């Protein structure tokens, strides 16, 4: 196959778009793992709930896309906090495996319930009027909505990173994971903070769900299909590293895009090949601190 430079650029851009979803989702996972030490397998299901929340807001309450960007993550975030308070809290001191199994079970239940009522083929969600159409970039036709997704998710990623790494709130949070007893002694309510952090991570997943609703179908299994890749992204980037997961998310989107151009059959395995390589060479991930 001869390399067509224009087509290559187009693929890079498309890769970047998919990378935004990986970045948003892996960011939420990294926040939750970094702060709570929980491997949140329910992340895909919560992402799906975000998309469904947007669908219901539009079709039942007639609330459009823009408010849904805030309302849906809030609603799903609250749902997440309830999960944390009622279930995850009880296993916080235990081995990772317990959290993994519990959240995996929750994911299966949530997906099962949605599938029971809505089937597997999904529901349509239209692109908001303001972002309809596209522009011709010369080398490709870029749907405005996709451009919006890249920019918006970049902003959200950077804000989240700033919140955790550069603010007092974030510092408290990081301190609380290092030594909860000591932070408590300073009069900070650590359990509440942990609940809010889980809510934040879940809200990020739901936000990604709302963003993807107009692109993909709103389907019960949309998260299940994606979450495995996102976990690979987190592993490659380094578990718990905020910036690492953002950069790896975008980078792997691009790698996948290139694979789709050069050897499409391998496009859904390339991420895992990379994961194996990274684990062999640097088990703590590209940006991870050694455990």
């Amino acid at each position, binding site marked *: 196959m001869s390399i*067509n430079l*224009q*087509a290559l650029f*187009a*693929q890079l851009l*498309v*890769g970047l*778009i*998919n990378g935004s979803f990986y970045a948003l989702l892996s960011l939420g996972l990294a926040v939750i793992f970094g702060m709570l030490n929980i491997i949140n397998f329910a992340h895909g299901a919560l992402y799906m709930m975000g998309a469904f929340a947007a669908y219901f807001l539009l079709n039942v309450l007639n609330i459009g896309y823009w408010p849904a960007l805030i309302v849906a993550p809030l609603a799903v975030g609250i749902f997440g906090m309830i999960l944390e308070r009622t279930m995850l809290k009880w296993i916080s001191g235990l081995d990772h495996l317990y959290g993994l199994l519990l959240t995996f079970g929750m994911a299966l239940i949530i997906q099962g319930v949605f*599938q*029971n*009522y*809505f*089937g*597997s*083929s*999904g*529901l*349509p969600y*239209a*692109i908001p009027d303001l972002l309809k*159409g*596209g522009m011709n970039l010369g080398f*490709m*036709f870029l*749907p405005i*909505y*996709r451009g919006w997704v890249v920019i918006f998710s970049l902003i959200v990623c950077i804000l989240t990173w700033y919140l955790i790494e550069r603010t007092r709130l974030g510092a408290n949070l990081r301190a609380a994971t290092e030594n909860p007893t000591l932070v408590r002694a300073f009069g900070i309510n650590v359990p509440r903070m942990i609940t809010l952090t889980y809510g934040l991570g879940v809200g990020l997943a739901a936000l990604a769900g709302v963003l993807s609703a107009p*692109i*993909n*179908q709103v*389907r019960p*299994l*949309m998260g299940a*299909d*994606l979450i495995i890749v996102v976990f690979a992204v987190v592993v490659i980037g380094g578990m718990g590293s905020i910036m690492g997961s953002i950069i790896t998310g975008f980078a792997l989107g691009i790698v996948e*895009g290139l694979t*789709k*151009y050069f050897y*499409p*059959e391998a*496009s*859904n395995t390339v991420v895992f090949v990379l994961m194996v390589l990274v684990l062999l060479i640097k088990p703590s991930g590209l940006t991870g601190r050694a455990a």
Partner: protein
Amino acid sequence: MKNKITALMLGTALSLATAGVAFAQDKSIKIGALSDQSGLYADLGGPGSTLAAQMAAEDSGLLAKGWKIDIISGDHQNKPDIGSNIARQWFDVDKVDVIVDVPNSGVALAVNNIVKEKNGVYINSGAATSDLTNAQCSPNTVHWTYDTYMLAHSTGQAMVKAGGDSWFFMTADYAFGAALERDTTEVIKANGGKVVGGVKTPLNSADFSSFLLQAQSSKAKVIGLANAGGDTTNSIKQAAEFGITKGGQKLAALLLFITDVKAIGLETAQGLSFTETFYWDLNDETRAFSKKFAARMKNGAPPSMVQAGVYAGLIHYFKSLEALGSNPHDGIKVVTKMKELPTDDPLFGKGKIEANGRKIHPGYLFEVKKPSESKAPWDFYKLAGTVPANEAFTPIEKSTCALLKK
């Protein structure tokens, strides 16, 4: 994985009365509905197909005549090895007589071999590959609803004749996609068109934009979607997003089900033309059945073409068993009887089963309605043309099935 859905019991008094007479005759039937119960094909087959099987049993009239019909269902998860294991277990342990549905050509071909080995009956409704009645044909198999030859020769041919003479394929990377691309390519070439390129996409992809961009830069007049279910709906939706249809390229949805149209939404799907062999709103009989069916579906969906095929296939199977007088538990014998008897059911009308196992009936070219034309929740199609039964499927003299070379 496998759950016992229902056990339809003997009609009481009548069966007790005839029990003594029928002692020597085995009037029990066990049906296995094997499908994708939770993945991308679950809505077009899945639990709806099991319901269709159940309704066929109820409508057959056999229960009142002292027959006993059991239905079990299984989830093959779109994996040939899992499908094969279930089929084997059904024949060896559960003593299943007939396996129905089985969407996903990869699984369908694997199960085809097992049914032949175990001398069971195989009424396939969900799979598309025309290999089931050609190179891989079996004396135990009836391929009921549709196949890749039919799709290629109706939708494919119609597109080429309407001026779409250069094609780019987006092909699901497994047995079904390959068969559909092969059969459609033949039609394109036979009608003077050419294929300028193609890309094989992994099954169950969420994002098709990379592939669509390749299709776009190929400058082909038609982008042939040799995929199904969620893959097709995502392709169509994203093609609209990337301005491909507005740019003058046409999409050929070679295989589209009513559940897919529902998922895409009329706004995006309007104007698509494609082929099915069943639509709930075709005539009074299909409407009556669909109404009963939808009332028993959780989401109120009318039957898809695949689910309709499960029903109709079993109705004919029951008729053939009744003609035999009892269940011989001999697959070849039953399928031979099924081929002997003309078919006649409320959903597909009158037809027949060819010696290679191909069920023959008309194909319908549909066009998706505009949102303004749709009057009811599932009112999606308008009929654009009919391919008569004798033209819709592979002519028997062209079939490469070994059963024909005696």
